[in-house]
């Protein structure tokens, strides 16, 4: 348990937070643009982990010894696979319901999520059981005072940081980013301005999926055990992180994710039951006290 402010736990919390942040961003971007809680988003994360797993065994022999190249290939494949699945889910399941009551899409998303999870565990080549994730990058520990920082921590933090900086630039600087912001603020106005709404939505799913895929790889390397239902809890917690930060708000999702990662690490160290429950406790508190989240803006219904 140790002292109240334990540097080791802050490090672990930041590491966990980085993974949550990558997942939470997808939730928040999709919510911002289509007002859908994409239940299947956690499963895109799981798919990323499996894609990374497969890619490792496919390319390991080919690039033998060059760890950096291998890791890069695996990352790209994880991101691309999850992005494609996210794109496909949007095209097949969410798009036809775009202008139907919101709950229809939510329920469909639950269906998509169930489908992915059970399909993975039913599919003989994958199966429901746990798999040990290969050591893509050998772990090395660096001791700083009482705390241990492994190279994996640094990789998790760095990959998350690079992707988040990239996303921020994309949203702030590019035409696509401006279109995304326009659609999230007012769909009708954006359409009148000539923005191809469906294209923007597709892109959002692609980016969100890619980020979840990257998170899947990082999670596989950090907590080296994968299984078809591994996306459920991180997905839910990342979603809660997005709500905590203010859903629809990109910096909010990052902030919420790091708070969540740290809160969970501390709570789990204290008591594992509290660790399991802290996310929901945070969710319920946020929704009751400040439903718009830390950085979210108030959206009032006009009557």
């Amino acid at each position, binding site marked *: 348990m140790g002292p109240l402010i334990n540097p080791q736990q802050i490090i672990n919390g930041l590491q966990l937070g980085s993974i949550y942040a990558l997942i939470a961003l997808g939730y928040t971007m999709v919510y911002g643009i289509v007002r859908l809680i994409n239940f299947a988003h956690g499963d895109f994360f799981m798919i990323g982990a499996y894609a990374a797993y497969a890619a490792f065994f496919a390319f390991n022999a080919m690039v033998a010894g060059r760890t950096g190249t291998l890791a890069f290939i695996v990352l790209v494949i994880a991101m691309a696979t999850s992005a494609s699945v996210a794109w496909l889910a949007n095209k097949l399941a969410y798009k036809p319901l775009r202008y139907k009551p919101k709950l229809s899409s939510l329920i469909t998303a639950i269906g998509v999520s169930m489908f992915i999870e059970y399909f993975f565990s039913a599919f003989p080549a994958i199966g429901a059981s746990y798999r040990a994730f290969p050591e893509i990058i050998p772990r090395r520990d660096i001791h700083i005072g009482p705390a241990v920082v492994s190279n994996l921590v640094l990789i998790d933090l760095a990959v998350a940081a690079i992707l988040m900086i990239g996303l921020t630039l994309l949203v702030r600087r590019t035409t696509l980013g401006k279109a995304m912001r326009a659609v999230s603020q007012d769909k009708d106005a954006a359409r009148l301005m000539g923005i191809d709404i469906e294209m923007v939505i597709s892109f959002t799913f692609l980016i969100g999926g890619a980020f979840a895929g990257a998170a899947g790889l990082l999670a596989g390397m950090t907590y080296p055990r994968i299984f078809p239902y591994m996306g459920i809890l991180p997905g839910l917690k990342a979603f809660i992180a997005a709500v905590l930060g203010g859903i629809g708000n990109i910096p909010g999702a990052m902030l919420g994710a790091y708070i969540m990662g740290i809160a969970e690490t501390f709570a789990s160290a204290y008591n594992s039951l509290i660790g399991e429950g802290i996310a929901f406790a945070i969710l*319920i508190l946020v929704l009751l006290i400040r439903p718009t989240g830390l950085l979210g803006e108030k959206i009032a219904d006009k009557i």
Partner: protein
Amino acid sequence: MKLQKFPRFLAVVILFYAVIEILFKLDVVNGYLLHIINLSLIYVILATSLNLINGITGQFSLGHMGFAGVGAYVSAALSTLVFKLSPSKPGDMLVFVGCIVAGGLAAAVVGLLIGFPSLRLKGDYLAIVTLGFGEIIRTAFNNLDVVGGPRGLLGIPKFSNFTTIIIASALSVVVIRNLIQSSHGRAMLSIRENEVAAELVGIDTTRYKVMAFTFGAFFAGIAGGLLAHLIQLAHPTQFGFIKSVEVLIMIYAGGVGSITGSILAAFGLTFLSEGLRLGIRSLADATGLPIGGEWRMVIYALLLIFIMLFRNEGLMGTKESKIIELPEVE
């Protein structure tokens, strides 16, 4: 005239009961089939009570099986651990009924608590919070050693049988139906239709939303208690999120807002589910291929997606059959 006054629903229930009992005596219906019918009847309670929350009042609960879990654990703890009931002792049946009701009441209290977030939250947010509550309840069972923790509560006496279950199921349907077809029920419907307008024609929307959750949870608790005393086990995994989604699929398949639809879908999907279970197993046996039970859930998931995409209104829409619906009081 007199004959017409005899409640149609009661007549159908009695007929159904008699037919199944006779077929069972004649060995046309075997014990396995009777078990599936019992399960279907329990799902009738679960689906109609969830429909009261989601379909009639327009709220959204994703944690319905959490309520059932409270009912199951509380009633089973009472019957098994506290009173140590046994079906062979004549007086114990009455105590069992008391245990089931106590389970329902405990679930209702939890429903009341969960009803409160619904006052501030709508739609998808509410869905997530109810999901969270359901998971918290499940985690609690998983960690409570008195009721077996992750192993579950074992050795529950088998009090549930076709007779007790059909009575409970018919009573639940009648109470929910009568509630819906009263002024109170119309107040609940108005919240689903337009909450602001409901409030502005004088409906205390807060009260009715909490009421829907409380009633819905009560009946889910009853169903959970019956289930525990049928399969003689209460286990945390029976009450998780996916189980709640199964009930959700029932109300969407049947038609949100239609009690008739919920009843039909409860039977249809319970039988489909068992059919798939058997079909997949015999397919695997026959072909020797590794075809796992998870395919059943894959099909369920696809069913849910297809309903949402292609038949949003479900089997019945919001319509009721004349067997369920009461005539207007004239």
